[in-house]
């Protein structure tokens, strides 16, 4: 039996987040970056969560660059400390209790980070988004290999090379703006919309499975997603 995860169990507040996943010297490095930033402009209450997040992103980006150019294992260790716990959580969200799979997913994705660091393009996405796409693709592949779903279709080429490889500074600015809009607006979404987004993205549930588990009509699931996307200003074209 699969445990029904509620939004509250999957997500954590920003404060836990920073305590939990920045252990040892990773945290020290991050604080150094933040201190440099703080010296630039006086701040009454110390760094805000948004500033911490920004500092963290900058730190992760530098780590990726050091891994790509110098095969720097200390920088990789920082990435490991940040992402391994998230990758395990991401696996558990889909397959509660499957700890072997959680370790396998973390391992597969971290090795990919090490081997593909040179393909990361900071103009088009943050390190987080890049790792998320690696995690998503690897989880699909792992589920298939472990026989969690049977299919004759090889997912490997379905999610690859679909992103635009544009180095246009305007596009890069737009990517950053989209990321900021999401992080500002997501926590203000109504809980029922957050819950559906979590079901689809973290638990990997299809719209129909989400509808069944929440005891809602399929149309309600779809409209919650649509409303959330509107509020986050994603996919405004349609």
């Amino acid at each position: 039996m699969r445990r029904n995860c509620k939004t509250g169990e999957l997500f954590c507040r920003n404060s836990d987040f920073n305590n939990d996943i920045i252990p040892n010297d990773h945290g020290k490095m991050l604080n150094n970056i933040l201190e440099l930033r703080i010296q630039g402009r006086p701040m009454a209450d110390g760094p805000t969560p948004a500033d911490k997040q920004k500092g963290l992103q900058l730190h992760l980006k530098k780590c990726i660059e050091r891994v790509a150019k110098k095969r720097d294992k200390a920088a990789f260790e920082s990435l490991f400390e940040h992402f391994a716990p998230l990758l395990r959580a991401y696996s558990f969200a889909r397959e509660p209790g499957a700890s072997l799979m959680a370790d396998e997913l973390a391992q597969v994705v971290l090795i990919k980070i090490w081997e593909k660091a040179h393909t990361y393009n900071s103009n088009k996405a943050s390190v987080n988004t890049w790792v998320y796409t690696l995690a998503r693709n690897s989880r699909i592949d792992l589920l298939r290999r472990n026989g969690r779903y049977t299919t004759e279709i090889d997912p490997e080429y379905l999610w690859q090379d679909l992103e635009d490889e544009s180095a246009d500074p305007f596009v890069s600015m737009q990517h950053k703006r989209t990321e900021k809009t999401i992080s500002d607006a997501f926590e203000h979404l109504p809980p029922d919309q957050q819950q559906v987004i979590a079901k689809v993205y973290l638990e990997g549930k299809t719209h129909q499975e989400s509808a069944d588990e929440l005891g809602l009509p399929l149309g309600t699931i779809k409209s919650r997603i649509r409303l959330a996307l509107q509020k986050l200003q994603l996919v405004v074209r349609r």
Partner: protein
Amino acid sequence: MLVNHHPDSERLTAFSAGSMPLSQALCVSAHLEMCPDCRADLDSLNKLGSHVFNQMKPSRVSNDLKQSVFKQLNDTQTHDPVSNSPARNETGRVASGVPKCLFQFIDDDYDSLDWHWVSPSIRQANLCVDGNGAHVALLRIKPGGKASHHTHMGEEITMVLKGAFSDESGIFQQGDFVVRGSNDKHRPIATKDSECICLTVLDAPIQFTGYFSRWLNPLLRRAHP
């Protein structure tokens, strides 16, 4: 290429989340290869995925895992293999516009597939059956060719890979992504100037209202080869 019909945003969200049947993902992937607008939307949706991924409660990591990962790190820069697939006839597939996501089913160009006779103007090549029972096939309609009237038990997704067809609701061209629900009765006709090749995914077998009872019905095909 002017793409007019796109997957809706909920479907694109499911693709970005990796939470849709692979047969459907195949159609969306083929569309994305041909549609820069949807690729841009996908980039944004991936950022939503990244946001919730990053908000998860972290799960404690054992030392064993760390050691095991570090043991596997090689010091040299690994060069990405240009293509992981055996490049048997990359040029044939690229020249005939076969989407990359279909390379796993198509060794050379479209002609290299095993096309079955369905009607004087229609051929069909079965690609696979997805875990949920959905049938994935290519349909090839001669210029001006007509399919028979049919309705669906489930949902039918059609991705136009080449040429164009029209039915009661409009014209659909290369790159267009069309979804038909179970209540739609329709009769596609290929445009006169070129043949039309479509990727189709069918949730449940079709019910026929015309006399071509074997049209696009892999179950029946198997029963009566």
